[in-house]
Structure formats: C-alpha cells, structure tokens
C-alpha cells in the first residue's frame, strides 16, 4: 500500500537517504553506522592494550588529547581503563556486531531472499534504525558528561554499577538499543511468516533466512527481560529503590542510604537470561552467511540442510535454558549448577552438528577459492577453537579455575571476532555486488584476509596462555599481582598484533569506498548463485526489488544438478 504510494512521487533527498522507508537503504544505514562503531570500539581497545603492555606509561601520540575521564597527563587512570573496558564491550556487541549481522544484512537480504517487495512494516523499520542511532549517540556522549562513561563492564554487575558514575547514561542508551532490537525483530518475524514468495516453503528457505528468523525470535523473547532489569537498575540509581541493593551495605566505611533487601544475584539472572541468547544472536546470522557462501563456493547442495536448520531452532530454544552457566562461581545454589552444566553440554551438540555439516559439505565439492569463500572457510577452524574452548568453561570443575580469567576473554573473542566478524566480512565481500552493482578488488581483499587472520590469532591466542596462568580479566595493571608476571610479555605481543590488525583494516576501508564508485561492474548474478536475491537487478529496484515477484520452484542450493548444462539452477527458474 505505502510502497505504491511512494513510487508515484519523486522522492526528496531526505526521504530517500535519511528517513528512508526502503529496507535496502535502511540496511545500508545500519551497515555504515555499525562499521563505524566497530572501528571506534576497536580503537578503544587499542588504548587499553597499550596500558596492559606498558602499565603506567604515557599513551603515545594521543594521550594528551584524551578527555579527563580517561587519562590524566597522557597516562590512563584506573577509572578510565574501566570505562574503556565497559564501553568496548557494549559498543562491539550492541552497536557493532548485532546491528551489522541483523540490522544490516538481515534488513537488506532477508526480504530479497524471500522474494518480498519490502519489510512488513517499513515505518517501524525506519524507526528501529533511528532509535538505534539515538542509543549509539547517547552511548558515545557518555564519555563527555561529568563522571564519564559507565565503568562496570558490559555486564554491569550490581551493586558496583549502581554505585559508580556514568551508569545512568549507559542504562538510558541500552533502553533505546533494546527498543530498536524489539522493533526490528517484530518486523523480521512478520516478514518471514507472511511475505514469502509463492512456492517458497519452509523447506526451501535459504539457511540465512532460517538463521535470521531464529535470531529475531531470540531478540524478541530475551531482550524484554533485560529491559526489565535495566529499568529496575535505573530506578535503583535515580529513585533510590533497592531491587538490587542488599541490606546493610557499607561503602567506604559509611552505610548507604538504601532500604535494602534486594538481591545482587537477581541482576545476574536477568542479565544472563538475555546475554546468553545474545551470544547466539551474534553467531547465528554469521552461520547463515557461511552456509550461503559455502554452498556457492563448493558448487553443491549444502550437506544436511534439514539438520542445520533444525540445529538453529534447537539452539534457539535451548539458549534460554543455559544462562546460569555464567554464574557457576557466583554464589548461586551449587545444585543448580548440575542442571545448567547439563544443558550447556547439550547445547554444544547442535553446534558440533552444524560444524560437521559444513565440513562434510566440502566432500565431493568443486571448490572455488573466491574471496568470500576464503572468509567462510576461515570461519570453520576459527569458530572451532572458539566453540571448543567453551567446553572447559561450561564444565564446573574447570570453570572454577578459568572463570573470569583471560581464558574467557579468549574464548568469546574467538567466537565473536574470528568467528562472527570474519563471516560478516565475508558477507560484505559476497553481497557487495548486489548492494552496489560493482565488485570489490580481489587482490586487496586477499591481503586484507590473510593479514586479518594472522593478527587476530596474534591477539586472541595468547589469551588462553594468560588464562591458564591465572591472569584475571579487567585488571588495569596486571603486574601488581605476582602470578601475572611471567606471562606479561604476551601482552606486548598482543598489543602489537592489535595495532597491526588496525592497520590491516586500511586496505579494506579503502577498497570498500573505492569499489563503491570505481569497482569493476558486474552482472546481476556474479557468483552464479541460486537464491532469490540474485534474481533481481544489482542494486535491486527501489521499493519493489523485483521487476515481478518471482515464483519459487526448488530448494535453495541446487548446484550441479545432474543433466543440466549449467552448474547452478536458480530457485526462481522452473
């Protein structure tokens, strides 16, 4: 209804690029914004890494330009370090990876892959982006308000977070981000349920759509609980309620002015009830992208389509029952640990099944090592490390020692950075021709790929060594404690790897922007792929995508069908 209305009028600049209702423009807005946030979040950690490698020494080049809330006289102070740590986590997860995986790729390609003209609710879609944008701006602004940014980690454990400066802005910004995710997920769910092209049954859906659909359900059911927790924490701060303040707190020698009676563990339950599904929100879209690229690069139907889709759903359901494995040493009842250890071990089985299916897809293939394929292939061993190192963390006897050490940091960075982020970068290379009608440069892409992989491992692998040596996380100066001294040299290695990783992104950024304007022009289906997004022009037509809504005749990955001349057989051709 609204789409036809819009087509008939020439659009103003503002309607077309700022307050656009077109899912593709909104997807691009999400992509540019989230990439900028990723870069920013990464720069924050470079500052922290310098402090870890050379504790107490002045930050080179930029130390004197940092705000007082972070550094004094060019040297970072502990409050600044804690603020950077909290903001790095928050920005990377809530403003970087999720908006890139869900907001950008989901918005742009979910409607295309199901053959829809647009999302079900274009206005809600636009609102979702702008609410996210406001949340991001609030989050950044918190560095410059008196008291600085939040200092209690991205987990914001109470009562520390309630008693520290900066937390109010964090909670307000989170409220916006949560609202944005909710609006987005409603849109995704209704679109997938209602707007699929004729003939596109559930068993013909591309795996990327399956992944986005399960992700949207996770966001829908998990985020409101954090919203509740955030509101309670906000009231604790501004209205002096004591939901999370236990009786008899004495801070700095004086009793706090709270009625008391609250529970500090309640926050952790509310938080992890969101934040464990959140891990799969980070991961599932990436797995969906890997499935798309693998099928394309191996030129054969993906192995175990039903098993993978089933595993996505199984992970989706089970991810609501594992949250307390983050709390084995939190003081929670020890008997609860048995339950959560068991569910955690069970949830690893579908992940193993997915990896197995991906690996078996290589068998009998005809592998083309194109640029996106490199990223998809790198995802497998890298996510493998991330997944496997999750085992000792979900297993209580080993978690006692490894909990809150650098082992945990290494584990989730392998999952999210070398796993998700590598796959998302592959997605950018894979879908760039569809978004802009041009290809990214292959040579510079390969340089970007190899340097990125090497330096990422240079940062994250030593974290396991540190973790096994017992180095705790979130230490401003690890050299104060004797058990951290032996492995301190690894911090220097990690810091230089991080700086080099930042430099390695320059070819990507330059390649990206140059290719938008000057890249090699491509046809509509440069990778000779089968799914519906390749059935429309590149870039797709504004507000309607397809010349005519396609009809779907077959499954998503029909490559090398016996008896056909071409090695691919698109879904929309009979």
């Amino acid at each position, binding site marked *: 209804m609204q789409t036809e209305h819009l087509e008939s009028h020439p659009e103003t600049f503002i309607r077309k690029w700022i307050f656009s209702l077109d899912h593709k423009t909104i997807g691009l807005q999400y992509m540019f914004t989230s990439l900028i946030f990723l870069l920013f979040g990464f720069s924050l950690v470079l500052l922290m890494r310098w402090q870890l490698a050379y504790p107490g020494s002045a930050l080179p080049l930029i130390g004197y330009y940092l705000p007082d809330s972070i550094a004094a006289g060019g040297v970072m102070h502990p*409050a600044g370090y*804690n603020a950077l740590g909290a903001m790095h986590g928050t920005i990377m997860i809530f403003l970087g990876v999720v908006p890139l995986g869900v907001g950008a790729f989901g918005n742009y390609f979910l409607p295309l892959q199901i053959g829809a003209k647009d999302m079900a609710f274009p206005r809600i879609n636009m609102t979702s982006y702008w609410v996210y944008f406001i949340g991001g701006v609030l989050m950044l602004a918190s560095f410059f308000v008196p008291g600085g940014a939040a*200092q209690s*980690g991205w987990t914001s*454990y109470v009562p*520390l977070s309630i008693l*520290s400066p900066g937390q109010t802005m964090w909670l307000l910004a989170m409220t916006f981000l949560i609202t944005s995710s909710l609006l987005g997920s409603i849109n995704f769910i209704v679109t997938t349920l209602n707007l699929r092209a004729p003939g596109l049954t559930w068993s013909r859906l591309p795996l990327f759509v399956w992944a986005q659909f399960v992700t949207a359900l996770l966001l829908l059911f998990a985020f409101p609980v954090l919203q509740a927790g955030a509101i309670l924490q906000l009231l604790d701060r501004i209205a002096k309620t004591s939901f999370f303040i236990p*009786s008899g*707190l*004495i801070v*700095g020698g004086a009793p706090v002015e709270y009625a008391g009676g*609250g*529970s*500090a563990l309640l926050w952790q339950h509310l938080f992890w009830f969101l934040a464990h599904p959140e891990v799969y929100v980070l991961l599932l879209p990436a797995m969906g992208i890997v499935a798309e690229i693998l099928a394309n690069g*191996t030129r*054969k*139907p993906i192995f175990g389509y039903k098993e993978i889709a089933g595993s996505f759903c199984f992970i989706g359901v089970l991810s609501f029952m594992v949250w307390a494995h983050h709390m084995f*040493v*939190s*003081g929670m009842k020890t*008997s609860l*640990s*048995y339950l959560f*250890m068991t569910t955690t*071990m*069970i949830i690893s*089985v579908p992940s193993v*099944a997915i990896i*197995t*299916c991906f*690996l078996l897809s*290589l*068998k*009998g*293939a*005809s*592998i*083309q090592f194109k640029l996106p394929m490199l990223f998809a*292939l790198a995802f497998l*061993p890298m996510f493998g490390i991330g997944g*496997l*190192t999750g*085992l*000792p963390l979900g*297993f209580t*006897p080993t978690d*006692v*020692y*490894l909990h*809150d050490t650098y082992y945990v940091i290494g584990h989730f960075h392998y999952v999210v950075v070398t796993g998700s982020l590598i796959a998302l970068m592959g997605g950018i290379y894979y879908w760039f021709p569809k978004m802009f009608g041009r290809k990214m440069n292959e040579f510079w892409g390969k340089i970007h790929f190899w340097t990125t992989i090497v330096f990422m491992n240079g940062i994250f692998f030593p974290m396991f060594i540190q973790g*096994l*040596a*017992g180095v705790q996380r979130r*230490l401003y100066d690890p050299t*104060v*404690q004797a*058990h951290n*001294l032996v492995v301190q040299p690894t911090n220097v290695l990690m810091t230089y790897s991080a700086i080099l990783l930042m430099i390695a992104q320059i070819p990507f950024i330059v390649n990206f922007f140059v290719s938008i304007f000057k890249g090699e022009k491509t046809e509509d289906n440069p990778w000779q792929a089968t799914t519906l997004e390749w059935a429309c022009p590149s870039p797709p037509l504004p507000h309607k995508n397809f010349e005519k809504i396609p009809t779907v005749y077959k499954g998503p990955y029909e*490559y090398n*069908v016996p008896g056909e001349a071409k090695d691919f057989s698109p879904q929309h051709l009979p």
Partner: protein
Amino acid sequence: MNQNYGWGLPVQASSYAGKLDGSLFLLHGVMILIFVLWAFYMIFCLIRYRQKNSGRALYSHKTPLSSYIPDALMLIFEIWLIFFVGIPIWAHIREELPKEETSVALHIVAEQFAWTMHYPGLDGKFGKQNPSLINADNPLGLDENDPDSLDDIVSVNELHLPLGKPARILLSSKDVIHSFFVPEFRMKQDVVPGMNIPIWFEPTKLGAFEIGCAQLCGTGHYRMRGDVIVQSPEEFENWTKSKTKS
C-alpha cells in the same frame, strides 16, 4: 621471580587442585584431538576437491546415518564427562564441607579494596559485630563488650593457615561483589554482598601464595590482593598466640 608461577598452570597447593587439573588436561586433550581431526579433514578436502582436481561436484541431498557419528560421540563423551567427572568433583569441592572439629574455621570479609580475615581465636567463637562501630582500626566493627570478641584475630590482607588441615571459610562482602581467587589452590568464589558463602580447601604445600580479586569491583580492582601464608601447625599456633590480645 616467584617459583610458583610459570607459563602453564601455577603449582598445585591444595588437596583438590590435582583433580581439577586432571579434568582440565583431559578436556584440553580431547579438544586438541577434535580440532586436529577437523583440521586434517578440512585440509584434505581443500586439496582433494579443488575445482582443478575435482571436476563436477557431487549432487546429493542424502544425509547418511554415519554423518551423525560425530554428534553422537560428542553427546556420549559429554554425558560421561558430566556424570562421572563433573558431578563428583563439583560435589566434592562445593558441597562436602569438612567437619568443624577437624578444620580451621574463619570468616573473610571483602571490601573495596582489601580482604579482612576474621579468626574466632582460642575460644572458637566469633565476636558480635556492629556496623556502626566500623572505623579504620576496627574494619569489622567488632563489639568489644562481647566476651567472645576479645580473643578474635583480625588480619588484613594476610591469611595464615596451617598445613594439612582443611580451612572452612565463610565469605561475605561489605560493599560490592568481589571474587576470592587463589590460583595455587584452584579456588575461586564470588563474594556477594548480602550473602554468606561457605567454601573450603586444604593447603598441601608450605609457603606464600597470592589472593587476587577476580570480579571487577571498582577502580582499585587490580590492586586488591592479599597473601596466603601456609605454615606448619606449630608455627600457625605460635602466630595465633602472638596475635591474641591480652
């Protein structure tokens, strides 16, 4: 440099450290095995099924039953792991508290950014505490009018323990969440305000070890450290006597 620490795990200094390390080695062995198998299979496929070597790809939608073997093996391994390794060890370290008669009982109170050890002293009874009496000299707010409190020992950031006798510790916090971490004992437990959390361990090695805080507790988190001093029972008794007032 301290002899207790190196590039791997710190030395084992408690009765159950060996058990925990055993499961850590077991898991890492299995993880490395799985990873190597995956990697070899993947490298083999990448070479064997390159477009150059492979020609036309195989078209198949079948998922043979054998492809479930890895998942099934994983499930069996994990069930074995939980029921035969995980649950017994966890029950041992968290639920089988040693008897009071045979152990050293004490309280540890965490605050920003120090650990205060509170021993009951010779009478074995902890004195009454009153929050309003808390000051720099009396970090726990011990009530001096209570006879039980007279022989109590309060020691800041220094935990003395006798060798070979289990320690039963009740952890509590005055302000925010801390985490009691002694790497050599493989001991870690969050200290949560509003809760009293019992833990136990048995030192098996003489010497000085380190207490760290493992949960972000504010700007001084990194320097919130203490020492554990494990002494022979005689030395420990001497220390107790020397610390007792009057």
